[in-house]
């Protein structure tokens, strides 16, 4: 117990109209941006502060944000871009939506600071199409407020600094969350990832140097600048500075978004914050960071802390912080089939292993669930997943492979039982026995 909540991205949440400029400014919002406009902060200072904070990309890959910013060519003339990735599509993840809804100004200020640090004067916030009803208008209203307050635009407050921020609404493709597919989509093309190199820092939006950061990463920046890198780094354990937004879903008493310090023990998150497993049932497994991460069985996750290093050592990853909780009544075969269907449907189709392999995985799993599976299929499942992993242009191939590998690794018996028993789930057997 005793975890402090809502320290960074949700710091306005307790106030009325937490999304308004007034509320944000009451919480010392735009303090850093005004400092920059007054000429009191250099890009180098900002980048070194963000580096020191230990902030890592919250979009899933966990790449150090400050380091990413330092890749942008510094002394090159010409347009540079900052792009915020609000195409929050990872299954289980729904916290960026709440930043857009409840604290949009933290993102706007974060983007302004980041753009200034990298010499970008134009930024786009790429928001997923499904957010059209509430998050998009809320964010747009905040941008308008900021413009009207003279915080954005050309030669802002006669500082000589230009910063224009535009909203772009996607059309609802998971793959557009991959940063280069996002750029393609932003350029008006089909959302298909580009092969790298060249990386966006050298050849990004419209061929110009571009950095793409996740919503939560950018929204964390004002707090880092306000309260210092040391404070932020100290919130979490080594290698995992700051707070995380956990989207906790599944068999849980109190599902929701929680902003908590990095490194919280999973069992505290489960029991103290989220009220325990639904109906007091037993925990079976957790996917700790969105459906692309490897699943961890209860006995492993219960010993884990929720941070980058601990989850990696446990055999999974922090991902997006989307914690999917599954209790003892869950049939792991059916869950995997549902996950496999998602990756089949969301594959962009351009490169061979993913286009062909994701459908193959789904069809085999469907056969198994429908009672037409064979024991040999289980080996082929792992083999096919292995042949997708690491062979594709973007990480969607890996994301499709890892659940298959980990589900079969940890729950092989459930799969084996099903193929031997014509599609009957071991979970159903247990339920009948209990009845």
């Amino acid at each position, binding site marked *: 117990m005793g975890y402090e909540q809502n320290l960074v991205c949700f710091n306005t949440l307790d106030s009325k109209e937490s999304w308004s400029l007034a509320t944000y400014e009451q919480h010392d919002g735009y303090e850093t941006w005004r400092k920059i406009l007054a000429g009191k902060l250099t890009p180098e200072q900002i980048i070194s502060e963000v580096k020191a904070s230990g902030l890592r990309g919250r979009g899933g890959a966990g790449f150090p944000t400050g380091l990413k910013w330092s890749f942008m060519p510094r002394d090159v003339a010409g347009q540079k871009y900052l792009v915020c990735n609000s195409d929050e599509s990872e299954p289980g993840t729904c916290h960026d939506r709440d930043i857009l809804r409840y604290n949009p100004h933290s993102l706007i200020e974060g983007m302004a600071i980041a753009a200034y640090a990298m010499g970008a004067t134009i930024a786009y916030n790429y928001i997923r199409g499904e957010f059209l009803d509430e998050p998009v208008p809320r964010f747009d209203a905040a941008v308008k407020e900021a413009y009207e307050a003279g915080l954005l635009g050309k030669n802002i407050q006669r500082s000589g600094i230009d910063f224009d921020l535009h909203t772009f609404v996607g059309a609802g*493709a998971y*793959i557009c969350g991959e940063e280069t597919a996002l750029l393609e989509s932003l350029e008006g093309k*089909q959302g298909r990832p580009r*092969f790298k*190199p060249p990386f966006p820092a050298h050849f990004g939006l419209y061929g110009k140097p571009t950095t793409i950061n996740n919503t939560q990463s950018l929204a964390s920046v004002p707090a880092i600048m306000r309260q210092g890198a040391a404070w932020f780094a100290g919130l979490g354990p080594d290698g995992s500075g700051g707070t995380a937004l956990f989207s906790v879903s599944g068999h849980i008493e109190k599902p929701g978004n929680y902003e908590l310090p990095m490194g919280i023990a999973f069992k505290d998150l489960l029991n103290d914050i989220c009220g325990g497993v639904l109906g007091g049932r037993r925990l079976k497994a957790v996917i700790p960071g969105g459906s692309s991460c490897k699943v961890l069985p209860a006995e492993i996750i219960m010993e884990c802390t929720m941070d980058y290093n601990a989850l990696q050592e446990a055999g999974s990853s922090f991902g997006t912080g989307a914690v999917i909780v599954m209790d003892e009544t869950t049939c792991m075969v059916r869950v995997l089939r549902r996950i496999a269907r998602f990756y*089949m*449907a*969301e*594959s*962009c*189709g*351009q*490169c*061979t*292993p*993913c*286009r*062909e*392999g*994701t*459908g*193959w995985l789904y*069809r*085999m799993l469907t*056969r198994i669930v429908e009672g037409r599976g064979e024991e040999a299929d289980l080996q*082929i499942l792992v083999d096919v997943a292995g*042949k997708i992993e*690491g*062979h*594709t*242009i973007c990480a969607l191939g890996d994301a499709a492979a890892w659940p298959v590998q980990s589900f079969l690794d940890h729950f092989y018996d459930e799969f084996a039982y099903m193929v031997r028993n014509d599609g009957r789930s071991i979970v159903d057997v247990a339920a009948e026995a209990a009845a």
Partner: protein
Amino acid sequence: MTATNDDIVNIEIDGKLVEARKGQMIIEVTDSIGVYVPRFCYHEKLSIAANCRMCLVEVEKSPKPMPACATPVVEGMKLFTKSPHAIAAQKATMEFLLINHPLDCPICDQGGECELQDLAMGFGRDISRYNDRKRVIKDQNIGPLVSTDMTRCIHCTRCVRFGEEIQGNPQLGMTGRGEYAKITTYVEQNIDHELSANIIDLCPVGALNNKPYRYSARAWEMEQRATISPHDCVGTNLYAHVLRGTVKRIVPRENESINETWISDRDRFSYEAIYNPDRLLSARIKENGKWRDIGWEDALSEAADVLRAATSEKIGFIASPAATVEESHLLARLAWHLQTANIDHRLGRRDISDQDNDPLYETLGCGIDELENQGAILVAGSNIRAEAPIIAHRLRKASLRGGAISFANAEKYEYLFDVADYLSGAGLVKMLAGIAVAAAGGESLPDSVEALCAGVEADDAQRRIAASLQDADDALVLLGNIAGRHAAYAAVRALGAAIAQLTRAKFGNITEGPNAAGASLAGVLPHRERGGKARDDAGKGVAEMLDSSLDVVVLVNVEPDADIHATTDAVAKLAQQKYVVALTPFVSDALLEVADLLLPIGTFAENSGTYINVAGTWQSFSGVANPVGESRPCWKVLRVLGNLIDAEGFDYVTSADVIEDFKSRLGDFDHSIAYQAAGKFAKPGTADAPGDEIDIALYSVDALVRRATALQLTLSAQRAKAGDIA
């Protein structure tokens, strides 16, 4: 290589030390040293897609296999193309490619020459592990040239990139996502471009195939024989695929300096005309207005009799610029023997008033492959995409490299690149005079065009064009076929040359037919002998011959209703002549009307000989197909005719003997004969009225193309029939 040390990196491929240029992709280096890495999406003429994942290789210190096509080499890189890790990755890709492929090789035209089939032999499993339902894609009709079996598609997107990058108008694209991604036209439509069928060769599988050829032969039972395209001045290199003496299809023969790996659709599909029902299968003679077949012996002695009986100055030879150098040489020698100078190949040239100043033969002014390096090009009087598709493609490349490509032509045609300026709507002389005035910039104009430019003021576009030619290091002024057929060609040419002179640009022509250069050099001209030597007494050109009443006119591969533009009413005028002998592969109503004797000659496919292209390149070829009917190669017919009229030295055995004889008689000829402006040209008046231009549609340029069934079904041919040539 002139690379400095900084540009060189040392890498190791399969244990072998190799030097490579910095920034080269792995696959370029492996290809250059003969190490084969399997690939589908990679093509050296197209951008990198890296989507097939077949070329994955192992790179030291990289946990993942890397695509050789998209991974640049760096100093010290160690890579393995055949390590267990690399082979496993390649085999994995092959397994994925095959799961949804129909494996219908026995009924697929691509079978036997299929990249997927070949690589499956090396990297595929004997038995598929995939037991689920395969994907099926509904086929689309994309026109008369390319057949589609899209279920076979492996999504390499070569065809898509070809449309975007080479054609310049993307007509195919990949729609849908994941397993449902498919290659399709965005809306149901035909592909429509003069180079469109190259996607047949690009497609590594049997998804896009040759429609007219469909199901008519197997790759392994045909012979591949080299030949040269007879349709334009480019001299595109081709292979004919021949089954028991019959041409089944035509494919590109790579020649980087001419056609790269591309051929135009008419080069590919004109072969259909070889077997058109219009072919003249035996010699025919008209007696009392009725035609009857006769044997070769009778036909040739009839022709010889007619020629012998005629008065020398009343004999005329009108030859196609598609006649080979050998045939042109024999014709010129026949004419010499018969003591007539009435001989010409310039079927389209209306204005020969300044012919004494013609160059030795017309050329492009630079190599075909140098076109793309020009900083500025002015193309005047041309529908270049129809006249020479390969040259149009090079112009597009020049534009993509930043060259300023401008056009001056009364009619406005569509170009699939950024045209710097397009002057249109006025007569060519008028438009060029403006550019010449701009190029002079107030200084004095060459004498030849002074009168043409008197009182002319340049507009902004004309000034921009002049400036672009002036500013570029390499610039070119090019006159097209429409200019060549202009009623005031002398004035057009004087202006073109003046612009080139004033802007220090090169000056060149797009010529008609595949061998205008060879015909000129051989002396198939009324005013010049072999090697460009002026005749003492000039004979008659095409128009003059038809306007006179001659005893005999010999037509060589000429269809008077469609090929002659030097004068109007060619058919009626020919019908007035006393006797017309036509050497022709085809019968037509017009020929039946005007001719008295028809001698069947072979098409390019049944002939051997030499063409000199517009860059001055000599290219010899052998016959690739068996003669159709009683037809014989034209040069043989001319040779026997020479024997029969007792012309000396006509004892050639092969066409190679003819070309050797030509070369030795040519000896040291005067290479320096170039266009020299002489005299002053007056303003041409109505001869320069817009609307007077003669343009020939893409699929009407010659007798073969006009009879190629599939080409005549294309949208382009249909538009032309409806009166819209562009």
